[in-house]
């Protein structure tokens, strides 16, 4: 028996961790680089007289018992503090190469970068700012985008953890938004709207599952075809139904459900506790999916099916059934996400999801196929999407199109292994057939 312990014939684990450390250090170096850029351009590159105006008051002032005055900060100093913070995080990663949560630290640096950009954009030469940036409004606006992205990336996590690539999230968003506005307009209930969205998303998931599991079609192609089909079909229906009968597309905004007391906390209250029901449902869903995937028997089966379906099959797990269930559930989650998006816009418009489903997929990858990671990534991408849509109002010298590229550039960096190593479930996208 002793001999066997000597006979470890493939000794690579030590080298692996060395290589991983090297990559971790590279991430740290990138973080330091971004910090230096921020310090040089957004802080030292600004005249010391420049000021940035901030306010934290919620848009709906009557809802706040408190009133924080406008805050005017010296652009150079506040950005210098941010830059130092970024560099400190980078140095910590380089020196300590923490095994976990490197991506989270990187996400924090990315958010700080966007904040510094924001301060830099709204700076004015003198101490009395011309334009004031409402940080609370920025956070609330970003949280609405992030919420939709989280629904989408949770959908992706559900499907891909079981080994099916769901590239049709965008289509499920559109389908959910369409059905959602009809039901919300006619029943005036967002619960019915959400249920309808879940059904249509689930049905689209079922179609994807059927084609890729029954007929072993290429999952990417089926997904893209579904998105294109739903996009065109919803535009057609929009023209045939909503244009002549606009009363079916008045969805209206989902009302905010303020949680007593804690919603009054400055900044945090309006961002987290004065949101629509969809937002709270999303929070619960993140916990539920995370719990189900990593703590339960069901989750163990799902992950086994996504990693090594044949191994799962040999212990009696029905691979195809697990995949059907997950793709349908994932589709339903994306469908609800579509309704949530509609409810934040007030109605349906053809093509107005403008690629959010794909950004959600990017968030899933950046979040390493984990619900918690997907949340961090969605917050980051949500902020960048919101800023790209709203920065024009501040006369930004950066084109919004460039800012629109941000989530995808990060995704390319992540997928190419530039920022850390991400590993998809081993059987992701590979059809399974019984011998």
């Amino acid at each position: 028996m002793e001999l066997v312990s000597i006979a470890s014939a493939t000794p690579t684990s030590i080298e692996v961790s060395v290589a991983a450390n090297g990559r971790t250090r590279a991430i740290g170096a990138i973080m330091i680089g971004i910090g230096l850029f921020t310090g040089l351009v957004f802080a030292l590159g600004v005249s010391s007289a420049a000021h940035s105006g901030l306010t934290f008051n919620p848009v709906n002032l009557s809802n706040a018992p408190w009133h924080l005055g406008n805050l005017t900060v010296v652009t150079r100093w506040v950005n210098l503090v941010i830059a130092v913070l970024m560099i400190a995080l980078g140095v910590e990663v380089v020196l300590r190469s923490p095994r976990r949560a490197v991506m989270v630290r990187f996400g924090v640096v990315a958010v700080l970068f966007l904040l510094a950009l924001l301060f830099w954009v709204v700076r004015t030469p003198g101490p009395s700012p011309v334009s004031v940036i409402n940080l609370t409004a920025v956070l609330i606006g970003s949280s609405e985008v992030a919420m939709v992205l989280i629904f989408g990336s949770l959908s992706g996590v559900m499907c891909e953890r079981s080994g099916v690539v769901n590239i049709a999230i965008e289509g499920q968003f559109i389908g959910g938004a369409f059905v959602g506005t009809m039901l919300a307009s006619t029943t005036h209930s967002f619960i019915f709207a959400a249920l309808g969205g879940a059904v249509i998303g689930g049905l689209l998931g079922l179609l994807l599952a059927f084609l890729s599991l029954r007929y072993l079609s290429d999952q990417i192609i089926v997904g893209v075809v579904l998105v294109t089909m739903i996009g065109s079909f919803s535009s057609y229906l929009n023209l045939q139904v909503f244009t002549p009968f606009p009363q079916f597309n008045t969805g209206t905004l989902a009302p905010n459900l303020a949680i007593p007391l804690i919603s009054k906390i400055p900044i945090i209250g309006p961002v987290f506790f004065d949101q629509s029901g969809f937002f709270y449902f999303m929070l619960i869903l993140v916990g539920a999916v995370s719990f189900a995937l990593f703590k339960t028997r069901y989750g163990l089966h799902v992950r086994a099916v996504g990693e090594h379906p044949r191994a799962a099959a040999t212990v009696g797990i029905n691979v195809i059934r697990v995949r059907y269930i997950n793709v349908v559930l994932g589709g339903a989650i994306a469908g609800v996400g579509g309704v949530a998006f509609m409810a934040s816009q007030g109605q349906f418009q053809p093509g107005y999801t403008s690629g959010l489903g794909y950004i959600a997929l990017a968030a899933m990858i950046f979040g390493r196929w984990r619900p918690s990671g997907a949340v961090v990534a969605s917050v980051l991408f949500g902020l960048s999407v919101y800023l790209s849509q709203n920065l024009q109002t501040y006369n930004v010298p950066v084109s919004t199109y460039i800012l629109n590229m941000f989530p995808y550039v990060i995704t390319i960096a992540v997928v190419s292994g530039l920022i850390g190593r991400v590993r998809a479930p081993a059987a992701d996208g590979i059809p399974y057939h019984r011998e």
Partner: protein
Amino acid sequence: MRLELRGITKRFGSFTANDQISITVEPGQIHCLLGENGAGKSTLMNVLFGLLHPDEGEIIIDGEPVKFEDSGEAVRRGIGMVHQHFMLVPVFTVTENVVLGFEPTKSINRVDYKKATDDIRRVSKEFNLDVDPDAIVENLPVGLQQRVEILKSLSHDAELLILDEPTAVLTPQEIDALMDIMRSLAAAGKSILFITHKLKEVKAVADVITVIRQGRVVGTAQPTDSEGELASLMVGRDVNLTVEKSTFTPGEEVFEIRDLVVRDDRGLIAVNGVSLDVRAGEILALAGVQGNGQTELVEAIAGMRHVESGTITLKGRNITNASPRRVLDAGLGHIPEDRHRDGLVLSMSVADNLVLNTPRRAPFAKHGSRNLAAVKENAERLVQEFDIRTTSIYEDASSLSGGNQQKVIVARELSRPLDFLMASQPTRGLDVGSIEYVHKQIVDHRNKGNASLIVSSELDEVLALGDRIAVMYAGKISGIVDPSTSREAIGLLMTGTTSESEHV
């Protein structure tokens, strides 16, 4: 468990993989199923394990006929299988892999990992199978992964264990350890069905031997029978187990590598400063357990993988980081490890595959267009000369048996003027007849005064062919020894235990 297979027949279309096979395994018995690749052993085991459904015949467990819809049912009836390719999820822990499908749960369907880990500790103690339940499987050496597979079956209360070619990936020491485990399991009353084509292992461990050929039981044998008797029963004719070689008269140095460093697909150093040289009239055999850098070394020599540092020289020409075509033109013949991926274009004809490395050269091409008459003439000649069994030279390479596919590659590589032959796992998956043939071709080539490098993880092959044996471990050469060296000593080198080995 007393297991009886009665008249099992399994057909795939017109092909009968199992024909009226009957076997009985008694409790506490190690029953060995001996047969060549393609004899129908794996099909039979898949039938027994519920992965395939038999067309005829019965499976009887302790006197009671059973039918398995899927392998989950087989597992529930006490049948455990250790697959040749492990059925383990690499990113899961040992515990997660062992409990998969049989999880103890707490409220709301949560897996009770504490109970699971305790159970695993108990079972591994009971059967003396030491393994850390919290280790991630992909970080474990292959021998331990196999132990996890065995542990998995035992945790599911298996009374009968099927071991499908379990030694293919193990070092000699790991094989000994596995044999010990098998004996102690049998002593504890478990029945074991051991599937293999390796005669030494059969003789070492079997209580009863059933020999299968072409889907039929052709006889039973005793472990005391000689290897020659077992081999001829398995193949159906007398087999020559030793390769005739003329005396070793090495000539000038033909091939040399110095301080070679090569990375694997993950960017990790796989070949770490290897130096070797091969002389004319010599076969240098490179032994070692798979995954110790041999594949990367061969790919680097063939020009298929980037060399980080070091040099490769063939007949005085530096071919480091040369393109595959330049390497071939320099006089290298290459029989690759994976014949389907790198050796053949399966969807192309036998004739085209036979000129795969020289299509643009006369006489197979003229004025930039192919000379199909020359291709046909070449194919007809080689099919004759190398005894390639095919219905037509225009048949797709995919329609040939594994042995004949390998013959196509051997014929292609050996039929042109070569300075140096490099063959990687040249007989993997072949039947004894084809192994004999390929070995004879390689040795004939050497007897004509040519230099060869043979890479193999089969110790028997290394010992049969090598004039010198180099052993590779963890990207380095752990020793170069004479073929008269004992198997145990070579086995130790394969685990990286470097002794004061004599360089010959």
